[in-house]
């Protein structure tokens, strides 16, 4: 089997994937009531997908991924308030802003150990948080950015109260960006990232330009996170300092870990589970949710991520095999 055949094989669409996306788009036809939650799921899924690109594929641990999410949210919000209410223009601006900040800060994560990277990513997010807090004339400070009047999507569909347009918009964005990510990680570029994660030294000995690849994927991931931020800002017509908080970085990490890092559906599956759990548990008391999330993380770390995801994956494969029979 040649290398090209091998790559094509990895990139082949599987039946379960098609079913997954049909279900996701089919949810648009549900009666109104759940679309706001679904919209949040789609946004978190896109955000987790972006973290997966650097954590799951390139092996960069980040505790400050909210930096790019927040950048995108503020970029979309400010563009909407000051220039044009068109949501797609805001999305493009947010992607550009996220990518720019990602590119500028990517040089900081090239050096050092996991710990240094943790601290630097955390530090970048904190710096942006403080900046947003210190510029209330632009960002509204602690009150948040208010008075966004987002225009209709494509000039046709208004964002309604029930969130159907919002969900359609977020899901379509997620789908397009997912397709792009799928192409990228199945291309030689994606393979070289995995080589870097497994063994940086060996990858560079094989001729992989390690630093250039890391900068590229970090920028790409930041652009994705910016898009997710824009979706949140536009569909809620509000940006608060929360978009840059540590909690958000921790949430997305958790969502990705639930679904399993290192495959593209990990972020998507994790986002679904995370949001549904959060919705059910925090309706009784917010502390409840935090406690269970913490307990889950502790158990997960003690049992071992690999063993757990292999367990879930094995069960799923077993179920699929039985269904096929």
């Amino acid at each position, binding site marked *: 089997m040649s290398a090209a055949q091998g790559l094509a094989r990895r990139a082949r669409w599987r039946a379960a994937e098609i079913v997954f996306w049909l279900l996701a788009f089919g949810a648009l036809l549900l009666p109104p009531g759940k679309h706001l939650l679904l919209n949040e799921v789609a946004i978190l899924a896109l955000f987790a997908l972006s973290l997966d690109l650097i954590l799951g594929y390139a092996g960069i641990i980040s505790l400050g991924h909210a930096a790019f999410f927040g950048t995108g949210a503020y970029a979309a919000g400010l563009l909407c308030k000051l220039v044009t209410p068109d949501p797609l223009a805001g999305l493009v601006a947010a992607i550009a802003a996220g990518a720019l900040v990602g590119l500028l800060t990517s040089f900081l994560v090239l050096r050092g150990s996991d710990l240094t990277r943790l601290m630097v990513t955390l530090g970048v997010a904190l710096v942006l948080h403080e900046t947003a807090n210190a510029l209330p004339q632009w960002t509204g400070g602690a009150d948040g950015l208010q008075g966004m009047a987002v225009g209709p999507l494509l000039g046709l569909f208004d964002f309604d109260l029930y969130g159907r347009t919002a969900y359609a918009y977020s899901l379509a964005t997620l789908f397009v960006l997912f397709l792009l990510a799928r192409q990228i990680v199945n291309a030689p570029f994606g393979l070289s990232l995995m080589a870097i994660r497994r063994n940086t030294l060996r990858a560079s000995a094989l001729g992989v330009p390690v630093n250039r690849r890391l900068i590229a994927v970090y920028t790409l991931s930041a652009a994705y996170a910016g898009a997710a931020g824009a979706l949140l800002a536009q569909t809620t017509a509000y940006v608060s300092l929360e978009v840059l908080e540590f909690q958000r970085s921790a949430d997305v990490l958790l969502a990705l870990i639930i679904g399993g890092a290192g495959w593209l559906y990990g972020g998507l599956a994790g986002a679904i589970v995370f949001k549904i759990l959060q919705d059910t548990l925090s309706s009784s008391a917010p502390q409840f949710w935090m406690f269970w*999330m913490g307990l889950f993380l502790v158990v997960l770390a003690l049992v071992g991520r690999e063993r757990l995801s292999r367990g879930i994956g094995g069960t799923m494969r077993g179920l699929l095999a039985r269904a096929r029979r």
Partner: protein
Amino acid sequence: MATILFDGVAYGMLLFVLACGLAVTLGLMNFVNLAHGAFAMAGGYVTVLLMDRAGWPFLACLPMAFIVAAAIGLLLERTLYRHMYRRAHLDQVLFSIGLVFMAVAITDYLLGSSQRNIRLPDWLQGRREILGVNVGIYRSFLIVLCGALAVGLQAGLMRTRFGSRLRAAVDDARVARGLGIPVGLVFAATFAVGSGLAGLGGALGVELLGLDPYFPLKFMIYFLIVVTVGGTSGIMGPFLASMLLGIADVAGKYYLSTALGGFVIYVVLIVVLVLRPHGLFARVR
């Protein structure tokens, strides 16, 4: 000017006591423990509860804060932490964030989310003029107490048998075990002392830092800064780093605005880490 310097030093001393346990677990044992602040919070709440409900005097609460936090630390180390020492950093991060979330949720559930305060004894309150500098009495108390602790810790690490065993266990656990050093016990004892010191710091810090269930998350970054900037060569690096951080924080918040003060610290952190990934005062390996 001198007053700000003085306040900064007091704040830095407090940070050092809070973070020095982390300097050992993270700096020396290379375990990313984001839950360190939870032990400090435990110490703080012990003090608040003992003073409020049992009417204990402030000074009597301090040893209790140490003991309770150390006991919790010892328990967790023996049951949970020791399984995590050799895991990947990502697992350690997830594990310790999980612990923080649980600690926050439990505290919030049991004790409420409001900010807690203590009433210091009268002889620790107020400010006084010494050599033309206006100093707070409680802050002088902090400096003396924490300074003594720092000297004691350095001596303990460098001069005692336990200290040399700990350094041996950290440098090469396998060889240390081969030489008959009970590595597991040494780590457990160290972890307990570090947690206890965090608890003591939490108790001392109620007055300066405030106390609410989100304490571990709010100050996590400060502890991490102390350790990563201080480097891993022992206690003196983190000590100097906490002095720098304390002075920079107090001065930044005084001369600039509150928001910009934080900004300066984080920028300095990033610059230091990018230029010297192993910390400002690291030994060359």
